């Protein structure tokens, strides 16, 4: 008798989907464990890590925010190669406000997030009608252009940058604000994307003409998605400025564009949890490989290639499937 491998949902998943989930601790745990894991992890990790790894965790959170911001855009049909634009804009906004006007970081960070986001949205407005690779190219070029503009015109400290900015009162506060922001972005945007509003954004990615046919102005929705994504990116940049007490040309560097994409791809594109998970794997990995010196980039690249070729769905989707479903051999019946 011929056999085939069957993939079906676990019994507990089916039970937990229903209201009966509240009848048993096991089912409640099954539902809540994947959600509690990142929350508890983010609360506990700073307490048990040393000073060096706390710094690494900080960059993990920054890149997780950038990766989430990339994923919002990707899910609404805009493939961006320029997260550095959002990041750098937020960083420069808060740096300028703090340095030239002496405003406290608690005020500059929110202002920089919103104003930076608005500036980025306005900058990208003319190219919103472009799709696919054209939009990607423009987003790639703008941050590199801004970098050169600052170098050539020597505004805002030129190549030297602005240093000696005010930092937040304590490193704990920095860390917890960032981690809370990641959690809020992770769960908030996930909720947003499953709402009717998110449905429109996903529809724009799938087939924008059909969305237009439904009587929806897709450009207005694209502008909103772009603004949301750039606020997230600008917030990450503003936080980074005050953590390092410095802002300069490197904030527009290619790293801030490429690493978030890599994180989202490794973690699992199309899910914010995947983007966060990807940042959680790639940033510490790049730190751990620092000992290898020049070969670091090679290892890093090989790792990425293996992942993209071998597991294109991303780690998160793979793990989620194993969590919800199991496989067994069944006889083929006619």
């Amino acid at each position, binding site marked *: 008798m011929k056999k*085939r491998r*069957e*993939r079906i949902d676990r019994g507990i998943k089916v039970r937990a989907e229903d209201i009966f989930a509240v009848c048993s601790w096991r089912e409640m745990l099954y539902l809540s464990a994947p959600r509690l894991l990142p929350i508890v992890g983010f609360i506990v990790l700073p307490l048990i890590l040393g000073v060096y790894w706390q710094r690494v965790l900080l960059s993990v959170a920054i890149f997780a925010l950038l990766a989430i911001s990339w994923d919002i855009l990707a899910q609404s049909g805009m493939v961006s190669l320029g997260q550095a634009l959002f990041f750098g804009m937020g960083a420069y906004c808060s740096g300028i406000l703090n340095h030239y006007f002496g405003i406290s970081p608690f005020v500059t960070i929110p202002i920089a997030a919103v104003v930076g986001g608005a500036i980025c949205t306005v900058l990208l407005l003319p190219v919103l009608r472009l799709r696919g690779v054209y939009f990607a190219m423009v987003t790639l070029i703008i941050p590199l252009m801004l970098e050169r503009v600052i170098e050539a015109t020597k505004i805002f400290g030129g190549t030297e940058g602005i240093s000696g900015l005010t930092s937040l009162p304590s490193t704990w506060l920095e860390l917890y604000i960032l981690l809370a922001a990641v959690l809020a972005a992770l769960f908030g945007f996930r909720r947003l994307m499953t709402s009717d509003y998110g449905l429109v954004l996903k529809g724009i990615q799938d087939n924008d003409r059909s969305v237009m046919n439904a009587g929806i102005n897709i450009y207005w929705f694209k502008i909103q998605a772009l603004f949301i994504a750039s606020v997230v990116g600008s917030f990450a940049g503003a936080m980074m400025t005050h953590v390092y007490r410095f802002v300069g040309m490197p904030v527009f560097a290619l790293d801030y564009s490429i690493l978030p994409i890599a994180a989202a791809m490794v973690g699992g594109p199309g899910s914010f949890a995947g983007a966060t998970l990807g940042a959680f794997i790639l940033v510490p990995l790049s730190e751990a490989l620092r000992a290898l010196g020049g070969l670091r980039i090679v290892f890093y690249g090989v790792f990425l290639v293996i992942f993209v070729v071998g597991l*294109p*769905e991303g780690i998160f989707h793979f793990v989620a*499937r194993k969590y919800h479903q199991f496989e067994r051999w069944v006889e083929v019946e006619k």
Partner: protein
Amino acid sequence: MIMLDVLNLMVFFENALALNDFSMNVEEGEVVGVIGSNSAGKTTLMNTLSGLIIDMRTKEKRRGGERITVYGKVVFDGEDVTETSPSERVKKGIVLSRERHPVFPESSVVENLKIAGYLRKKLQIHEAMDDVFKLFPALIHLRTRKAGFLSGGEQQMLAIGMSLVVKPRLLLLDEPLLGLSPMMQKTLVGAICNLKKDSGITVLLTEQFARPVLPIIHRGYVIENGMLTLNGTGKELMDNPEIKAAYFGV
């Protein structure tokens, strides 16, 4: 002589059964029709015969998507081709013209035909192209037009023409009449008839609406929910009251 033999074909998309124990055969020089309603498994059958399902299977596997499982055998000219890649099958002579007439929209009609004839020599392509234009005279004036700007029927003619340039021994036509006007359907059915007469190509076609195709097919298979429910000659099927009720729209 039996050219294509399909033995107990079963295709699963994850846990859904698209084709269930489907057996059929096509003899050399015949026009055979597979008739079935929506989601009966016609396109799955065509994809399995042309080998596209093998490509879909690997891609889905990599992506972690639906697992596609194929059981049973496809025998072409006495050779088991169940696991042969689509490109190898084209070299053997099985050529599929997919449903919804996929053409290269940015290329002109002639360029489309040239791309399709990649496997053949330049001189042969020119001959084959002349044959296509003879078969579909409507395409002659559209030679340099971009394929994306053609109408649905013209695109369908071009799509069939593209599979003819490869010089198939067995031509698979997946819903060639889909979305065409009755007038256009008549032209196309006539062309398929000529095709068989002039170049002796064996044709296997699928269709939902049986009325225009039944008169020209030698034999037909009726497929429902992936299962074979009925087979017989074109005439037998035409006289069958069930077929009349279900696929003739009377």
